[in-house]
């Protein structure tokens, strides 16, 4: 079968099965609440959320590549663009914008205008150190690692902490060269 032509985020999103965003939002809220009760330390919760995101990212990349028809990106710039325009759209139904590139083209910011994770959410004083959406950074890190890119993903701005948008800083640490021939079993 010929590879699918790359599709736009909207087209992919229109073709996947969808669920009510509120169920998703509230389920995520239930997870965060459970973690806060179990782990008590906000730092630990951040770590656990990141780990969960990583687990998701590692698996999500398969579906992403299969359904989006995106082929290898020529550089990190294109990668960031694809994440923002196709990745976010395909899974969360929102898009991000890519800004603030550094001179080397190895780190940039993903800015989210709309974030389905945080609806109905307000952080109490006791949780000020919590990165509520930390799962997202884990997802990006996990997914990129599966396509040979070691990254570091951190939160720069968070509306729950009073900022005016959600901004994720994605920094490319190392591009692991692909090894030929692939060690396939077949």
């Amino acid at each position, binding site marked *: 079968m010929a590879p699918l032509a790359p599709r736009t985020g909207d087209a992919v*999103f229109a073709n*996947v*099965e*969808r*669920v*009510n*965003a*509120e*169920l*998703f*939002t*509230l*389920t*995520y*809220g*239930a*997870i965060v*609440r*459970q*973690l806060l009760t*179990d782990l008590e330390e906000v730092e630990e919760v951040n770590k*656990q959320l990141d780990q*969960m995101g990583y*687990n*998701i990212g590692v*698996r*999500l990349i398969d*579906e992403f590549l299969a359904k989006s028809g995106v082929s290898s990106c020529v550089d990190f710039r294109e990668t960031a663009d694809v994440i923002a325009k196709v990745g976010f759209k*395909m*899974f*969360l*139904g*929102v898009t991000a914008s890519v800004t603030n590139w550094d001179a080397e083209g190895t780190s940039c910011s993903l800015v989210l*205008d*709309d*974030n*389905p994770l*945080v*609806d*109905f*959410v*307000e952080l109490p004083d006791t949780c000020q150190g919590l990165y509520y959406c930390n*799962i997202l950074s884990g997802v990006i890190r996990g997914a990129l690692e599966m396509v040979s890119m070691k990254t570091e993903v951190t939160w720069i701005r968070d*509306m729950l902490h009073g900022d*005016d*948008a959600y901004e994720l800083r994605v920094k490319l640490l190392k591009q692991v060269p692909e090894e030929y021939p692939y060690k396939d079993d077949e």
Partner: protein
Amino acid sequence: MIGAGKIKQYANVLDKPLSRGRQEVSLSAFAFLFSELVQYNQTRVDNIAELERRLEDAGYAVGARVLELLCHREKGNRRETRLLGILSFVHSTVWKVLFGKVADSLEKGTEHEDEYMISEKELLVNRFISIPKDMGTFNCGAFVAGIVKVRMGYDLAVFHWLFVTSISSNWPKLNKLLFLEKGVLDGAGFPAVVTAHFVPVEGQHRPRTTILIKFAEEVLQREARLG
């Protein structure tokens, strides 16, 4: 609009306009998230019953919020007060909002008067789940059971409250009853036990999921009084 209307900031989460609940995310996003919920909880428990209880707790947290949301949005702040009314509300309205369709069936138990069943051929949360042999009767539907549980508990508590206050309207008592209502919302004194079960269906590869609702005795007595 769900998701904080485009960079507009509100001082308080309650100042935000209520979303109309039309926004969607991909089913996989939910499935991935749910799978993490289950996997995480698996690391915190020693047995299946505990795991189901923890999932039920998570569902309960969702249910409490869905309830508030739907009462405002779908029902103009009115609540159901009768048994059948509540059941059909769960079966149709709640299911429709959460899972995009009404539940496959709502039946009354044949053996016990106090039992009702909501069945679903392919419950959303069980869709991508296969249960390992060694986990026996474990059912992720426990999460949905938690959602339903809250609905039953709360609606009936409010109903109870209305009923009692209509015969006595002095203030101290009223306050006490308001407290009771809150207690039920928090999970104390539940008038129904809700569980999820797999039921094999002939000619079908996968079993369907049945949510069994067993009402507490006082609920049925109350219902009988109302005739």
